[in-house]
């Protein structure tokens, strides 16, 4: 009654469905590009701003370097189309703000 081909199709469809719907708490698959396919500004942005969670572990020198990288990236983001400019300039402002905040806090600690 059930042909083996049908069983394979039903099973693979089910497995694909299970893999395709993420459980809550897991990353939702978007149209993510691999890092190598991203534009240079985007790779630089990701590299700088992916470190905010570790900001407290950086030395003042490292934080200063990150802030300089933020400042160097800003003019590149300003040349993007209106939507991406708005999104990424705001995100950059937040991550630069945090590095500057942590840097000031560390300098205060040393006083």
């Amino acid at each position, binding site marked *: 009654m059930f042909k083996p081909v049908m069983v394979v199709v039903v099973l693979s469809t089910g497995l694909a469905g299970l893999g395709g719907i993420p459980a809550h*708490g897991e990353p*939702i698959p978007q*149209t993510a590009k691999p890092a190598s396919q991203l534009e240079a500004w985007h790779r630089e942005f990701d590299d700088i701003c*992916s470190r*905010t969670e570790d900001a407290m572990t950086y030395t003042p020198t490292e934080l200063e370097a990150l802030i300089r990288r933020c400042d160097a990236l800003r003019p590149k983001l300003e040349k993007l189309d209106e939507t991406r400019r708005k*999104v990424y300039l*705001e995100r950059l402002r*937040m991550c630069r*703000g945090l590095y500057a905040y942590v840097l000031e806090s560390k300098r205060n600690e040393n006083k």
Partner: protein
Amino acid sequence: MNRNVSAALVLILILCSSSLSQTGTKKKRPLPYDYGRVVINNYSEQADLAPVVFQHWIHRARFTCRVCHVDIGFAMKAGGTGIKAVDNSRGYYCGTCHNGKAPTDGKVVFEACSKPVNTAEAKRCDRCHSLGRKVQSDYDFFAFSQPLPKERFGNGIDWEKSEELGLIKPVALLDGVSKRNAFSAQKDFALNPKVEGMPDIIFSHKKHTVWNGCELCHPDIFMGVKKGTSHYTMVDISEGKSCGACHTTVAFPLTDCQRCHSKPVQP
């Protein structure tokens, strides 16, 4: 006599009206399903559309604050982002998830502002552009909140406990949008209130960092760099400053004193 009575009545009326004008009107407490509701009207009415009504409760059950307010870039104040339809259709802001592709609850999440719509598709616009319209939502607040632990204030849901019990599992990362290294846990700490006898505030830095990340709060909301040097009054907080940025709008409200002032007072 009559003249005296009339004069007294006029005086009372003047006093009453002046005292009312000084105290202002009492803020109406929102209904549970409206707590955290945001109305966005930067461009909607210019485009002959109703303003957008955004319900925090359905979104916060699925995503941490950080995903939307840091990774996607939504401002912390209504209308502060200046979202345009074209932004959504390019896959940013609401369009990051509302793209007709992302799966949710076994179906595909609807597209936001994806392309020019004809009359038949106009109902899709109404899903968000719904202020003043009777729009049937896919999600019913009471059905949604029924199995979740209860809280007295806000929208009546204990979100923290709901997460602890695994009843909600907010997503903390969006592929292709969120980029971050391993998380460095922060330590919780106590804050001393100014009023004697008031229990200390136990601030869970750890929980707040998991939900918000670091840059959502520092330095925009909390700018003090040295612990104990910034002072936050309840008046400031109730005006939306510091803790009030979230705890007057979306997170449990200030009326829920014991949620923050939670350290037992030593006799």
